């Protein structure tokens, strides 16, 4: 041990000598962006789950009460356990992000943002306390309030409201960064042009995300389960999670499109970058991912019904074919080059059959819109058909392939979340706050006086 310390000590000493004496603002822009981007992605992936669980778990408890079925209670209780375990992990990352990375690397931006969005951030902090308090009360009073189910469900309802408020408050900040309004007016700040669409998009998204991840978790637990009761429960819960996820996701084409429309109206350069610029290939990947999620989900529905010989599998196959066609249509690129500008610069702004690099079938209007409408309508039909077939399913008999599909749907959803975050954050570039602070400007502005070297 002493030898190891002796070996490492000179390297540590040398490293310490090279470390900056203060927060590294103004240096290493790529490093700062990578650190923030990575940690924020991890935080959002975890926080999205916790927040979604805070809304989904009480809803499942209510469903269980309305349907008088015990397995709903077991699932809701399990989600409650998840919240109590992972809330602190997600919060710790958030605190690390704020206290170390945001203040340390992006001090000028953060102090500006804090000044502008002070009230939403204060409420955000309060809802954190409220959410964790309610989550613990809700989870630990499960048995004590068994005879007072109404009271327990009311606490769950409050937990859902607190979870929603928490998302809304941070969305005010995030949306303001893209579409800033008069910061002196708190109402204008709270209702800036993209705050509603982003909040709806993210709330529905979080609810879908927790559904898919629950499905994947239950798929893994199903594989490990040994007794028939557990097998039946995890089989059912996996199916429920996927159904919930698809049920929420089928609203996203409309909500997401509304969000994009507001960006077009209020932050045109960001919108242009997403649709025609450097982010357009990533956007294409995102819309393709959405189709893939639906395809995987409907394939699961088909297989699950077929396993037990339940009716409806044939029609679901047809729905899968429809979804594949919609996804192909959605995935077609409009400009057969990295950006539309590159096509124009090359003088090839004409259809490909005329020797150009434009594919009219890949245009947003009307083809991608029709593909999005196709996603939603076919998914609704598939959900209906699956639900109609469910009485013929015997829980606990699922096969390995179905469980793999559940895990795949969660993986695709995580990819979707990361892609969306990437597009939204990079759409704003070079601005941190559109029209107000650029990344360059932040780096060149010292928010704190450097500490003189001793």
């Amino acid at each position, binding site marked *: 041990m002493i030898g190891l310390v002796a070996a490492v000590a000179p390297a540590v000493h040398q490293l310490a000598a090279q470390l900056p004496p203060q927060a590294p603002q103004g240096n290493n822009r790529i490093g700062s962006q990578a650190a923030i981007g990575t940690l924020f992605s991890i935080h959002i992936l975890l926080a999205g789950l916790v927040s979604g669980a805070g809304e989904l778990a009480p809803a499942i408890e209510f*469903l269980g009460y*309305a*349907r*008088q*079925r*015990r397995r709903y209670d077991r699932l809701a209780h399990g989600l409650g356990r998840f919240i109590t375990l992972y809330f602190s992990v997600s919060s710790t990352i958030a605190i690390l992000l704020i206290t170390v990375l945001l203040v340390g690397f992006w001090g000028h931006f953060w102090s500006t943002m804090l000044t502008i969005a002070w009230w939403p951030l204060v409420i955000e902090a309060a809802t954190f306390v409220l959410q964790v308090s309610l989550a613990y009360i809700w989870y630990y009073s499960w048995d004590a309030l068994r005879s007072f189910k109404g009271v327990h469900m009311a606490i769950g309802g409050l937990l859902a409201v607190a979870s929603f408020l928490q998302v809304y408050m941070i969305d005010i900040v995030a949306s303001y960064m893209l579409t800033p*309004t008069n910061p002196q007016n708190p109402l204008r700040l709270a*209702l*800036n*042009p993209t*705050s*509603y*669409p982003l909040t*709806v998009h993210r709330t529905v998204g979080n609810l879908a995300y927790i559904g898919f991840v629950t499905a994947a978790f239950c798929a893994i637990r199903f594989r490990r389960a040994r007794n028939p009761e557990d097998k039946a429960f995890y089989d059912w819960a996996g199916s429920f999670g996927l159904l919930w996820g698809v*049920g929420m996701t*089928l*609203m996203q084409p*409309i*909500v997401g*499109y*509304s969000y994009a*429309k*507001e960006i077009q*109206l*209020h932050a045109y350069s960001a919108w242009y970058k997403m649709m025609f610029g450097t982010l357009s290939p990533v956007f294409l990947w995102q819309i393709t991912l959405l189709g893939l999620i639906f395809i995987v989900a409907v394939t699961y529905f088909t297989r699950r019904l077929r396993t037990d010989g339940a009716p409806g599998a044939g029609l679901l196959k047809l729905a899968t074919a429809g979804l594949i066609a919609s996804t192909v249509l959605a995935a077609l690129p409009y400009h057969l080059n990295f950006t539309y500008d590159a096509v124009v610069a090359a003088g090839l702004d004409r259809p490909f059959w005329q020797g150009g690099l434009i594919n009219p079938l890949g245009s947003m*209007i*009307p083809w991608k*819109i029709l593909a999005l409408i196709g996603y939603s309508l076919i998914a*609704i039909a598939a*959900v*209906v058909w699956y*639900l*109609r077939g469910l009485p013929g399913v015997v829980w606990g008999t699922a096969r390995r392939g179905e469980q793999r599909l559940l895990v795949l749907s969660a993986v695709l959803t995580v990819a979707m979340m990361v892609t969306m975050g990437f597009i939204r954050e990079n759409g704003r570039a070079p601005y941190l706050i559109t029209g107000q602070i650029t990344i360059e400007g932040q780096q060149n502005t010292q928010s704190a006086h450097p500490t003189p070297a001793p």
Partner: protein
Amino acid sequence: MGRRLDATYNWLDERAALRSLVRKGLYEAVPVRGAWFYTLGSATLVLILLQLVTGIFLTLLYVPSVTEAWASLQFLKQHDVFGSIVRGIHLWSAYILLFVIGLHMVRTFFSGSYKRPRELNWVTGVILFVLVLGMAITGAFLPWDQAAYWTAVVVTNIPAYTPFIGSFVRALWRGGDAMGPITLVRTFGIHVWLLPAILFPLIGVHLALLRKHGEFGSYVNYRGAFRARECVDVPPPPAQRPIEPPYPAVPTDEMWAVPLQTEDFYPYQTFKDGLVSVVLVVVVFVLAVAIGAPLEAIADPSTTSYVPVPEWFFLPLDQLLLLVPQQLIPLILVLPVGGVVLLLGLPFIDRGPERNPFERPAVMVPGAFAVVFVVILTLLGSGRLFNQ
């Protein structure tokens, strides 16, 4: 005094059978559970009556002419506090009526109350909803201020998208190709005569059908609800209540025929109905006094700078029109018409006996999606208008 009143009552009872009428009217058996949700129908009726009363007051002053309409309401606003409040009540009760009637429909839909033998209750209800919506739309034209004028321009143009007869319908409503005095007069006629002439008899039919079949309530009140429960046996059929109406009014699925627990309409349900209605009327009054009914500048067809703001109940459609490209607008305008046709056909499409919403995915999933879709579009639309 008391004796005279008694004598008068007895005289009337002898000739008009008042006692029996009151007994039939008040001592109906209604399901117990979920009774607060059943107040939405009576609240709708109270708000429609409020519309009628305030509407009569307004016709005493309002002049349906493009030169006088705005001036008559401006006079009301500036010189007549009472009249101004009445106009405020008319406006706010219309807004709340649309909200309450929407909730009433949603409740009826989710509870499966439209099923046999109540199909015609549902059909008349859908027509009543469309008529109330028509009243609200035509009422929005009448002030003939900027908002009214440009709303009229947009709304009267919508029928033009109908294949073959679109232009004819628009010209018929407008009284020509362009908006003008005839547009206002016709819309006024539709608002105060045509629509109410259909609305009020239909309310009578709706109530008579409700009285005949009784309030269905919710699936939780019936034996059928127990079929899907774990470890719970289906309870035996309940005894029939001696009072009117008998459940079931016509032969129907035995599981969904007679509520397990009922109570008298009076005083139990009437108390709840009364309370909800009083609260709504108070809310309407407060809004009428505190906010009142807005009146913008007089209509100016030559302006190019005015940005029309749709009425809140138009927000979902307005938001949808904003989202879709020009080529798909006719398709979007088919949605409301298609929606109404689907609603009218609902009891004839979903004919199974099952009332439990969790066991009716074929209608519940699209229905729930449609409701959430409308709510989300309204939210997004209101956010957009705020930033306009």
